[in-house]
């Protein structure tokens, strides 16, 4: 389910079935590196939307957690931990973070949720069919991460 009124309504009605939160993490860089930052956001947006299509009934796709790329410090981590806390308090059992910001890999241990880090693939040169095929193959690999995690807890 997406962060849209009608989807959130369905979520509220079927809370016991929707136990997984997906939070995209966007690193924003202004100035030098602005293009890479935008390309990474495009990639993560397409990827998480496609992922949401596969698992509509069990995940709630949150709006992206956005922070300044050169500010990867304690404050960002504390903020994300606050998100995590409220998400878990709301009854979600699993939290997944999807990002292409490398910095998070060293911080993975400090979060309860699962971090999925993917190197951003520049999509601007591709046409729609290529994009779809590429995102599809990436998501197929992610699906097992989710199903395994679910099977362990069910």
């Amino acid at each position, binding site marked *: 389910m997406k962060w849209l009124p009608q989807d959130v309504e369905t979520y509220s009605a*079927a809370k016991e079935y929707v136990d997984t939160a997906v939070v995209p993490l966007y690193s924003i860089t202004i100035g030098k590196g602005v293009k890479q930052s935008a390309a990474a956001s495009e990639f993560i947006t397409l990827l998480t939307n496609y992922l949401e*299509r596969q698992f*509509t009934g069990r995940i709630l796709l949150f709006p992206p957690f956005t922070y300044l790329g050169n500010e990867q410090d304690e404050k960002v981590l504390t903020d994300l931990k606050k998100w995590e806390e409220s998400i878990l308090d709301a009854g979600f059992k699993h939290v997944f973070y999807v990002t292409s910001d490398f910095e998070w890999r060293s911080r993975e241990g400090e979060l309860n949720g699962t971090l999925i880090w993917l190197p951003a693939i520049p999509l601007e040169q591709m046409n729609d069919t290529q994009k779809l095929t590429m995102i599809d193959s990436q998501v197929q690999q992610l699906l097992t991460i989710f199903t395994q995690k679910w099977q362990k807890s069910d």
Partner: protein
Amino acid sequence: MSKDRVSRRQFLSYTLTGVGGFMAAGMLMPMVRFAVDPVLKAEAAGDFVATKQKVADLTNEPVRVDFSYKQKDAWYESDVTESAWVYKDDAGKIMALSPVCKHLGCTVNWNSDKEHPEQFFCPCHYGRYTKDGTNIPGTPPLAPLDVYPYKEKDGYLYLGKAKPRKEA
């Protein structure tokens, strides 16, 4: 001058009937056209979308067919991609099933659960459907998978809007 003279009264009543009839027709014609319009429209081609799937290549094993069409969402026009599971049933008739689980809308896969082969399987809450899309009792879904109306044109498969079926 002819013998049957038209009286003033007759002349006026003829004229009034003529003009009145003309005006009534002018009002009624568009109304009738509006009323009949939906009927006439249904006979037109409908919203079938072309896929890349050749009808001749279909077997009795379901294959995933992706197709996309343009959707207008407020002022934003976007390409929407949908999928269908398509196969030929025992009688050779084409079956195009929507992959959207009737429980909460996840995407179902064919033959992906090892314990229950030859079934559609939803990984979210382990819903299952038989090959013809009927939901298996005891699993979360409460209705069979939607069916796409289909058409064959120049050897390619065209799919319409998925329609729900009655409960099994």
